[in-house]
């Protein structure tokens, strides 16, 4: 009797079905992740005339991307590692990369959903309209920005073993990004501090998102911010994958 190794596409399809079901059953936390950017969007309505629609939309999408990468992805990975769910999958004929690929595809869908929701909310609540090209480019750039935060989430679960520690660390990092990125970006006057924020993971992603909404305003600075985002994503992902252990015991 010949042993049959199932096709990777069939295995991936089974994993995806299970991971999407899991995400759906956790819809309360998904809704919370998507709700925060919408609340910011509505509460910042008065700032549109001062900073412009793209600034507001890009800030909201960035906050959502941070939440997806840090709160959604990394906590789910840490929990499943802690409970031995990964070990159970790894003793089957599933390549390890397929387990992670399935998780990442679910998060990519979340990123697309977040971007769409922010656009819809921006249109209906704040009357923000951008060009069709701007909408399309932003979806693409949101995936690149999302990759940075998924990489950061991967780095955190790579460096920390306990699910509780991962949870508290991601909350802290999320809070720091929100405070430094949003509040700091608007209120801090110090030029070198503004520079640091601008080239931080928060600032880089926000800048490329903002520019992607107005493709005509794409500048050399935006290209540099895009390169910085890609570099952050590569470094975080590389270190996160290198340090990652499938078993927390």
């Amino acid at each position, binding site marked *: 009797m010949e*042993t049959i190794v199932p096709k990777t596409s069939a295995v991936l399809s089974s994993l995806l079905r299970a991971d999407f079901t899991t995400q759906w059953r956790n819809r309360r936390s998904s809704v919370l992740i998507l709700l925060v950017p919408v609340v910011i969007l509505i509460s910042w309505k008065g700032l549109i005339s001062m900073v412009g629609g793209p600034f507001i939309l890009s800030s909201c999408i960035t906050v959502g991307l941070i939440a997806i990468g840090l709160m959604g992805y990394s906590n789910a990975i840490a929990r499943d590692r802690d409970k031995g769910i990964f070990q159970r999958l790894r003793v089957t004929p599933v390549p390890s990369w397929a387990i992670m690929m399935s998780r990442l595809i679910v998060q990519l869908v979340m990123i697309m959903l977040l971007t769409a929701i922010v656009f819809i909310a921006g249109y209906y609540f704040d009357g923000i309209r951008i060009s069709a090209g701007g909408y399309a480019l932003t979806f693409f750039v949101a995936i690149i920005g999302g990759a940075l935060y998924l990489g950061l989430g991967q780095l955190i679960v790579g460096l920390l073993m306990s699910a509780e520690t991962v949870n508290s660390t991601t909350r802290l990092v999320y809070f720091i990004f929100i405070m430094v990125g949003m509040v700091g970006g608007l209120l801090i006057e110090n030029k070198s501090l503004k520079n640091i924020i601008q080239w931080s993971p928060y600032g880089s992603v926000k800048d490329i998102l903002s520019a992607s909404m107005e493709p005509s305003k794409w500048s050399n600075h935006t290209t540099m911010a895009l390169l910085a985002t890609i570099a952050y994503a590569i470094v975080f992902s590389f270190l996160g994958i290198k340090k990652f252990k499938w078993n927390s015991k």
Partner: protein
Amino acid sequence: MNNQPGSSILEVEGLNVSYGSFKAVKNVSFNVRAGEIFGLLGPNGAGKTSTLSAVEGLLKPQSGVITVAGYDIKKQPLHARASMGVQLQATSFQPELTIAEIIKLYAGIYGVPLTAEKLAAILQDIKLEESATKRFGQLSGGQQQRISLVISTIHDPALVLLDEPTSGLDPQSRRQLWERIEGIREKGHGVLLTTHSMEEAEAVCDRVAIIDHGSVIIIDTPQIIIERHRNDPAVITASRKGKITLEDVFIGLTGRTVRA
């Protein structure tokens, strides 16, 4: 793949596993045959779990060769893993999924076509037909073990690995699981199980290996091991009721000291 009764399904040759400078498994060799239940026994920290993890492909041994149904675990890991079914000691499935969804997931992973009728038959066979929509965490320990066992054999593997399958079960559930394990053997599968229960090993295992301090001390049938050591002074001292059992021999061979 040769799945004839008595043919070797699992071959472990010269296995060595180390954690830093600590050698957890030292030159361990054994085989499991088709239609056989093989028990791996040993005190805590003896090297059972490390041996099993190496067979499962969860850790890389420093040296040694492991073949499952003729597939080298290093060279053809996916084929080797497709040839085995595994029930881990602390099995956990996604808590958000229902029992039916978990079975569908693993059937898909192993490439087993699963119709609604087949799924119903599986659930009926393990007497969980009314629990299809329940979550894994809502089941009792015995029910969880039945689900784990059915998932580990859903693809009809040549080798089934069971890591302390009856740990924490009541006598009824344990007996029922023994019958299921014996049923796996009747179908011609090879079974490798680890257990702390010598009663279990004596009751269900065709052969056992006692492992201690990372090395195999003895491999044989429980009856032959008892016969061979029944007059050892350490075994007689360990005996509590006059009749020599596998547990007495185990204590006699591995010592009375409690391991961490």
